């Protein structure tokens, strides 16, 4: 990829992760917080891919973005209305 394009994408993703991690502190709804956390993991995985760390990107995408989010969601569903 074009190096300047890649660094622009990296800066955009990093800024988005920073903003999302601040937002997740103030969100009242647990479901939104879980989805924002998953989004941060997905951005991290794309960032790892931009740094040519393919193994780490695969691991982050499968564990952080899919399985962790899923276990959080399932746990929230098990808790019912109590938050």
């Amino acid at each position, binding site marked *: 990829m074009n190096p300047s394009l890649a660094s622009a994408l990296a800066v955009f993703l990093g800024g988005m992760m920073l903003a999302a991690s601040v937002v997740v*502190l103030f969100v009242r709804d647990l479901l939104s917080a879980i989805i924002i956390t998953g989004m941060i993991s997905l951005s991290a995985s794309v960032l790892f891919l931009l740094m040519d760390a393919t193994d780490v990107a695969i691991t982050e995408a499968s564990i952080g973005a899919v399985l962790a989010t899923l276990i959080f969601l399932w746990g929230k569903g*098990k808790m019912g209305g109590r938050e």
Partner: protein
Amino acid sequence: MIRTLFVLLVLLVLAAAATSVIPHLKMRTELDGAGLEYARRGLEDTGSINLVTAVIVAYRGLDTLGEVVVLFSAATSVMLILSLFPLGRGPTDPSFIVAHTARVLPAPIMLLAVYFTTHSHLSPGGGFPGGTIMASAFLLVMLGSSSTPAGSKILPALEALSGTTFGLLGLWGTMTLGQFLNNRVIGIGNPGYLVSAGIIPLVSLAIGVKVASEFSGIFAAFRKSGGNR
């Protein structure tokens, strides 16, 4: 309100601390230290083309064993909590469409997972992502049926077997060459072939099966828990 202000204050202090570090950061274009050593000697030491797997499984194999133990205790405690406190609703019968998709999709997902796990010394992948992808195939099978699959009964045995395999492969090195998890207990073969790189493929297969059975066990526990609606 006070809580929000406190959180903002903590965030500001953290941001100030982080920005004060930025001028001291250096953009490095070359490797040095241990990284340079690994990059230089990795291929002839371990016979693994994928240097990341060589570092994770061979050079830092003991750390990986520690990670697997952490994951094991986490999975065990989740299963224990879920069996002690049955929460929430029990499973729902899947609809026709979901049931039939869940019959088609697990096969290619499992293929990808097995590729990641067994070819980790040749191409990107490894035991951890391979194992989690295997677990997601198991999850799909489970979502597509109205009960917990019969295969989930052998999950604890599978987990114990793969954990023991990892430990025994490490002890093999201790007994023959005097070093835990030594990669050269069997020859490293021709780099680039599937059967090469010493015990790296075996260890990542053990890690993959262990991670897969742990996560599948968590999912099965979630599925079984509850039902008292």
